[in-house]
């Protein structure tokens, strides 16, 4: 049976403001999808809502994992069910070592029924695996002793997100601008690693403004989101078009969505005045 992640007519608000206005999307495990769209169109919101961020209110619609609605599940349950979101802006956790955090995370995701206080993956086994994965990502093993995202450079944060992806081996992963902040060499390495880690084994939703990541992970589908709605879906050629020509055609053909997008991103005069 093919495993699926399906978004049905999803409407999401934050503080009463509509952000997603009817998103439909189906990803099969093994497929790669690109999600593109102008700033503020709702890409990160979609990723966070799939992961279960408590601050976003789902006003209608469904998110189905293999046909089962996951909207009532907490973020940790979703992670254990095989969903992963690589943050556009990862959060620092001072004092918590990356290795300790990852050992807990890996243990929980691999034994979804684990009760608190039950044994973690044996240290030796975990260390060997972590070391191997860090080697593949050309990360210095000392890095595992640093505090999670605390004082990491932009590129280091993104690499740490990929490391977590590699350790947790989810069924479905949303990568939110995992290529931003990386230098040219790092982008190439990251793209190759994602292809190796994800490839056929995962369903990938890649959010990006660049083309490098998609070169190594050619999407079967490209979705364009504007103003909280997917306005067009195409093949890899659509991603290529957006990279070279931008969103002008899309905006022209979808004036209503385009207007909604602008309305959300425009700065209120009061804010400009510093009030």
């Amino acid at each position, binding site marked *: 049976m093919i495993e699926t992640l399906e978004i049905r007519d999803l409407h999401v608000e934050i503080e009463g403001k509509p952000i997603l206005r009817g998103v439909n999307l189906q990803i099969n495990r093994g497929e790669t999808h690109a999600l593109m769209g102008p700033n503020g169109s709702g890409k990160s919101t979609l990723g966070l809502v799939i992961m279960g961020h408590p601050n976003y209110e789902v006003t209608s619609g469904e998110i189905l994992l293999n046909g089962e609605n996951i909207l009532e599940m*907490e973020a*940790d349950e*979703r*992670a*254990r069910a095989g969903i*992963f*979101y690589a943050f556009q802006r990862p*959060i620092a956790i001072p004092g918590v070592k990356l290795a300790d955090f990852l050992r807990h995370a890996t243990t929980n995701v691999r034994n979804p029924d684990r009760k*608190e206080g039950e044994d973690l993956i044996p240290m030796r086994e975990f260390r060997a695996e972590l070391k191997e994965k860090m080697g593949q990502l050309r990360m210095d093993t000392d890095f595992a002793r640093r505090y999670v995202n605390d004082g990491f450079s932009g590129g280091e944060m993104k690499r740490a997100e990929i490391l977590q992806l590699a350790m947790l081996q989810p069924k479905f992963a949303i990568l939110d601008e995992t290529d931003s902040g990386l230098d040219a060499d790092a982008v190439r390495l990251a793209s190759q690693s994602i292809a190796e880690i994800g490839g056929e084994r995962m369903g990938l939703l890649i959010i990006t403004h660049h083309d490098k990541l998609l070169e190594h992970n050619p999407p079967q589908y490209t979705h364009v989101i504007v103003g909280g709605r997917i306005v067009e879906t195409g093949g890899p050629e659509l991603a290529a078009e957006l990279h070279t020509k931008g969103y002008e055609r899309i905006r022209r053909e979808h004036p209503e969505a385009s207007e909604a997008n602008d309305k959300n991103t425009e700065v209120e005069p009061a804010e400009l005045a510093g009030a």
Partner: protein
Amino acid sequence: MALDISLEPEQDAIGEINKYNFRTESKAVFKARKGLDREIVAQISEMKDEPGWMRDFRLKSLEIFDSKPMPRWGGALDLNFQDIYYYLKPTNKQGRTWDDVPEEIKETFEKLGIPEAERKYLAGVKAQFESEVVYGSLKEDLVQKGVIFTDTDTAVREHSDLLRQYFGTVIPPSDNKFAALNSAVWSGGSFIYVPKGVKIEFPLQAYFRINEENMGQFERTLIIVDEGAQVHYVEGCTAPMYSSESLHSAVVEVIVKKNGRCRYTTIQNWANNIYNLVTKRAFAYRDAVMEWVDGNLGSQLTMKYPAVYMMEPGARGEILSIAFSGKGQHQDAGAKLVHAAPNTTGQIISKSISKNGGRSSYRGLAKVEKGAKNAKCNVVCDALILDPESRSDTYPYIEIAEQDVSIGHEASVSRIGEEQLFYLMSRGLSEAEASTMIVNGFIEPLVKELPMEYAVELNRLIQLQMEGSVG
């Protein structure tokens, strides 16, 4: 003698199984009547067969205690001094091996893991049960080198010249109401003398246990680290949970001479109805180093501000303090640094965590006296608040009478971040695991200063505190 030990762990106020919350049915060999007056104080002195000067010191201290008002700052003190047992003698003799210790008391300490710790990594141990030290040991090679590690009562008899020279010189009875109270009714505590140049590699540990309801524990500790000597002293404290309050009010005096070094580590986990009012102060002389590491968990109210007075040039004082306040608890904790000489360096790092309506206050003093040129003083206090019901306050006092100094003060208060929780949970950690991890991360800079065993113990205690809340 009743030998019935209740080993059933009970649920404590925050609904957790607490391994410290058990009570031993142990019959005291002597229990003074409740209340405080000249007669009780004289009786304690007589029971201990003390010299006249100590008896006079106690009676004088009682007068000072009576004349002083209750502190008007800090936490809410609802204490009836007449409703407390001031002296309870659990056994007639002190054991040199655990087999000498009365069975039920021995089992108490075994449950707390003390003999095991002793075998593994300690250079010496004192165990105090109610008012008296019931067990004492010190490694033979240290005895040979002239190290003294004994209970303070024995020291009054056997090392009276040495003790008398320093006793009450760092914290006189007139210092504050509770120092006066302790000076009047003190019993037990540790007396340590480390001779010139002797460096003790492994920690000396004392363990304080209150078992009885309405009991007051008033240990008195005096540590003298001679020139170029070194010691790490660790104390742990616990008590079971009762319906009415008990009082713990200690006085700890430390003298660190030229080039000496002392680290004093406390990990206390009192039950939630103990009033814990402790005065701790150290004098550090030329190029000496004094460090207080203070982990405060439990108690109803703790008021404790370990102090270092840097008396001569080059002295250094460091205070690391962690306070965790849960439901119904108030930790009024902090630190004091007094720079009384040039080129002295002081540092305070304080971390507090408030949860389930708990309240943490940081109260600290950084003082530079006239003439203490080139003093450096740095204070960092961070508070973490886990829920909207909990509270944290900061009361920093700075007094500077010298121009040429460098003083730094940073304070931060943060609420446990929703974004942090979400990040960790999105990687499969439950909410409880995620918040425990954030709290442990918050205190990590302090925990990594502790020897392994204590770091593990502290993390475990915090875990217990955390588990009580979530869900």
